[in-house]
């Protein structure tokens, strides 16, 4: 090793920052889903069906990943208007997802499955906490989308720098995949 | 007033130390980098050895003063406890040897290899052989400790022998409740929503036939010397812990999740009073899990007695059912409202 050693900096540092951050988020949900599994194996666990509206929400968020990916593609091609369009649609789909989730909570309450409070069962409480936390992360993603969207409007916008939208896109795909995992988990194991 | 004086004195001492330190910094600047470093090295090098020596003196003095106050000096009062003490000694010896060797080397090297104009350092960056040796030796020592330890662990946490008596212990803020199963040797069911602090402190379900002879006590429980006793632990509110110092055992008492622990006491309380020379000796139960502002005041007592004393004591205990429903108590004499000559016989404990 007497000669020069090249250092490889293949991934942009801020992308690395994001990836490791996503690892952190995974750990939080891992803690919650492990707790869920342990709790389920104990007594007093209510089995119930997930309301249909959660299925629809899943489809919506999958769609939003597609539009997100399109936004990145247009950004890389330098096509500003389609880029902004896809950003907007993705954000709208994100808000739609959050609304549908909320409706899911209401549906459960309507079926007499209390999420919190004296009559609640841990099964429902866990579902609520896990899904609600995921929803908060989606909200964060929506805010980031708006941020990138408004940045793209400013005169000083550097159209060649696609790093911000790539970062948001990675984050967005992550919350999508995370939801798929949680949804399958709650459906199958719950 | 004395507070202000004390603070003033401390501030004064600080100022003095500070000025001396500043002055010595000027002196060292004048003396030059090399010379002042040499002097500092000499002083600190000496202090390294001095600290080592004084340190071991301190260890000796501390041991002399306080070993006698530990439980080790007293000896364990249970079968399990004797194994614990044995393990404590073995661990002490193994870790003690390591402690002495490493601390001596540390402070001795620091002293011996202090900076010297004539010293040439030995550029020694690695040695796989050494690393393997001092990986293997600790690994072996630790394996010994693990084997020893796990044997005991499985013994302590395993099932008690047949014929063990069973007592249920419930912790609450801030005290202990004991339940004996009574003559039928089975505990009645309990449900926490039935708790009534006055008559049913653990929520016994009275409909259960096994409940009718359960005995409830607070503060003091009785066990028999030489007879294994299994404790079933629970809590009414927060997590507590049944700490049995003399028996070398403890176990958390968790609301909603029963835990168990068992032991065989070796000496009666009376015998321990003689053995320790302390007439106030008692097998105290200490709460060993933070449970609120009264955590330090949750004292319980285990009376270890021989079989006859225990039988006598048990015979005097009245099932809680009769305290909850005094009208059902056959030993109580009913009180006639207008008959003032009738004796009110309340059950004596």
């Amino acid at each position: 090793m007497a000669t020069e050693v090249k250092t490889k900096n293949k991934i942009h540092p801020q992308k690395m920052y994001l990836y490791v951050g996503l690892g952190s988020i995974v750990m939080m949900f891992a803690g919650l889903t492990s707790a869920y599994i342990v709790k389920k194996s104990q007594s007093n666990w209510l089995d119930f069906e997930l309301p249909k509206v959660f299925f629809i929400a899943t489809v919506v968020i999958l769609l939003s990943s597609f539009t997100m990916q399109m936004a990145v593609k247009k950004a890389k091609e330098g096509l500003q208007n389609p880029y902004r369009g896809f950003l907007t649609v993705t954000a709208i789909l994100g808000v739609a997802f959050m609304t549908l989730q909320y409706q899911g909570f209401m549906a459960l309450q309507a079926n007499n499955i209390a999420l919190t409070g004296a009559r609640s069962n841990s099964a429902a409480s866990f579902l609520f906490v896990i899904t609600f936390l995921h929803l908060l992360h989606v909200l964060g993603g929506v805010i980031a989308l708006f941020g990138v969207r408004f940045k793209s409007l400013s005169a000083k916008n550097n159209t060649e720098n696609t790093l911000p939208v790539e970062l948001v896109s990675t984050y967005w795909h992550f919350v999508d995949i995370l939801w798929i995992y949680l949804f399958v988990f709650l459906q199958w194991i719950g | 007033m004395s507070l202000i004086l004390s603070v003033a004195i401390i501030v004064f001492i600080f100022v003095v130390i500070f000025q001396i330190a500043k002055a010595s910094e000027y002196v060292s600047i004048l003396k030059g980098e090399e010379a002042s470093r040499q002097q500092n090295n000499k002083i600190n090098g000496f202090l390294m050895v001095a600290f080592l020596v004084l340190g071991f003196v301190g260890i000796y003095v501390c041991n002399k003063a306080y070993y006698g106050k530990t439980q080790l000096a007293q000896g364990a009062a249970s079968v399990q406890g004797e194994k614990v003490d044995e393990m404590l000694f073995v661990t002490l010896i193994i870790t003690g040897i390591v402690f002495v060797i490493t601390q001596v080397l540390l402070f001795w090297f620091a002293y011996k290899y202090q900076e010297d104009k004539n010293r040439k350092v030995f550029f020694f960056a690695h040695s796989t052989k050494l690393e393997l040796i001092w990986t293997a030796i600790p690994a072996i020592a630790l394996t010994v400790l693990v084997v020893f330890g796990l044997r005991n662990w499985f013994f302590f946490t395993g099932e008690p022998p047949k014929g063990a008596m069973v007592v249920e212990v419930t912790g609450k803020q801030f005290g202990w409740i004991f339940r004996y199963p009574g003559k039928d040797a089975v505990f009645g069911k309990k449900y926490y929503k039935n708790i009534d602090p006055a008559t049913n402190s653990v929520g016994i379900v009275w409909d259960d036939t096994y409940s009718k002879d359960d005995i409830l006590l607070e503060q003091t429980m009785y066990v028999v010397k030489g007879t294994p006793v299994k404790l079933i632990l629970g809590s009414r509110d927060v997590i507590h812990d049944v700490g049995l110092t003399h028996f070398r055992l403890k176990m958390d008492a968790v609301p909603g999740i029963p835990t168990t622990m068992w032991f065989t006491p070796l000496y009666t309380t009376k015998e321990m009073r003689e053995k320790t020379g302390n007439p106030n000796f008692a097998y105290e139960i200490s709460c060993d899990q933070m449970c609120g502002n009264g955590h330090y005041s949750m004292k319980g007592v285990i009376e270890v007695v021989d079989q006859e004393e225990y039988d006598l004591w048990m015979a005097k205990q009245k099932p809680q059912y009769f305290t909850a429903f005094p009208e059902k108590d056959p030993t109580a004499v009913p009180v006639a409202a207008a008959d003032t000559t009738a004796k009110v016989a309340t059950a004596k404990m």
Partner: protein
Amino acid sequence: MSHEAALHNHEGHESHGHDDHGHHEHHDTFLTKYVFSQDHKMIAKQFLITGMVWAVLGGLMSVLFRLQLGYPDASFPWLESILGKWAKGGQITPEAYYALVTTHGTVLVFFVLTAGLSGTFANFLIPLQVGARDMASPFMNMLSYWFFFTASIIMLSSLFVETGPFSGGWTAYPPLSALHDASPGSKTGMDLWIISMALFVVSSLLGGLNYIATILNMRTKGMSMTRLPLTIWALFFTAVLGVLSFPVLLSGLILLIFDRNFGTSFYLSDIYVNGVGALSNEGGSAILFQHLFWFLGHPEVYIILLPAMGMVSEIMSVNSRKPIFGYMAMLGSLFAIAILAFLVWAHHMFVTGLNPFLGSVFVLLTLLIAVPSAIKVFNWLTTLWRGNIRFTPGMLFAIGFVSLFISGGLTGIWLGNAALDIYLHDSYFVVAHFHIVMGVASMFGMFAGVYHWFPKMYGRYLNNSLGYIHFWITLAGAYLIFWPMHYQGLAGMPRRYFDFSIWESFKQFADLNRFISTVAMIVFAVQILFLINFFYSIFKGRKVTVLNPWESNTLEWTTPINPGHGNWPGEIPEVHRWPYDYGKDGHDFIPQTTPVGEDETETH
């Protein structure tokens, strides 16, 4: 601005034209330079000073509760004037005692030894020692400090709440922490504690992510991973530990918030509270919280310990004028400790009634972690052997660290053996163990770092004589305080007890408690001396006049005496060797930037 700076780093070295004030693209105002700084060196100092403030507060708290333990029958009228209703009649009340003990633990473990230790040195050293101009994301770095600051304000505010701060022990076990009625300290104070901790977790994550990204992606040319100083490796593993374990604590705290305020039953079951009655919660498990808590809690102690270990390795090598012995073994043992740290958490739960087989697995893994720790100790000893030692205050604290780590680490072996832990759990033996191995040892690592890198931080030296006094009194004092505590533990004396007078089994240590309390106050006073030295020397300390006052090999000493934004005014230096060529081929030291000579013996 921030990601442009990162981009510049990513593309290699670009020279910026710099004036004295820093980056050519913006002028610093007081706010942007000292308050909302995005410069890693300034952020490091912010962490350090905030950490010091908490160290004083937390230390003061310990003086107060030791006052109760040392002098349980005395009354101090001045106490009542400071604490008011918490010290009626001049005696600390049980409520106040438990609040002090809880806050002391929380604040020292998290705010001082995590934020104050990692936050300071990771921020200060990583870009300087890997050869980067700043962190991967200076903006997130700034946020990481301000989240910590906000968490501090909220924790501070909890001290002034009517019902008092949280008082259930820093471990915050439910149901005590979940039930408003179980203790006054479990009311508003607990909600504030949780919010503060949640913000603290965010702060730690934002910082840790930066440390990892910067170390992996922004090293200068020639700085391969195995040429990194051990300080950086230690900080790297620390960040990985934090990034993976803090989120689990967060999940546990979220469930706790729900149990406290939304009637859920994650941790609660079968509860009857005095004066309130039976609660409706059924089916919860209080032990669940302990699993989630200790999944962070155990890595947390290594998050506290590893940076100290890394700095000690560095400082010992520099001041022995010898390479650190066994670089790869040191690296490997850091790695082993980091992995094992995730696998031993339940050794804090041996007496919760867990499955004995599970318990035995944790015994094995726990005693396993003693092996890499032992290797490190032997390597430090060998580093000293046949060296040429300079006793700078930094070096003294490094040596003190090793002594304390030996002492505290060995008692860990007692506790890790479950059958012994049954007896020693929740006794003063545990208190002695963790104070020596974590409290004092890591604190010594922190002091070593401060004394060693102060010249780089402020361009001045700390006063040497005060440093020596600080070291010797603190070392002796710490041992005088915590060594005898092992005996109290062996007597079965429980921890977190306000008073021992009603206990026939535990009241024999009145004299010792008084002794310990007295020494504790002296040791605390000496720390104040250190703080005076620190703040005085920032402004009036002896000025540093040479670039490399310790004659060290690492990159931070190739920057100007007072480095500005971007650290190096010209190009970032290129690295040709590992950092430990001290005493090689007869040379006293060979900096990392020195190219390898033709007739040099084999290098790393």
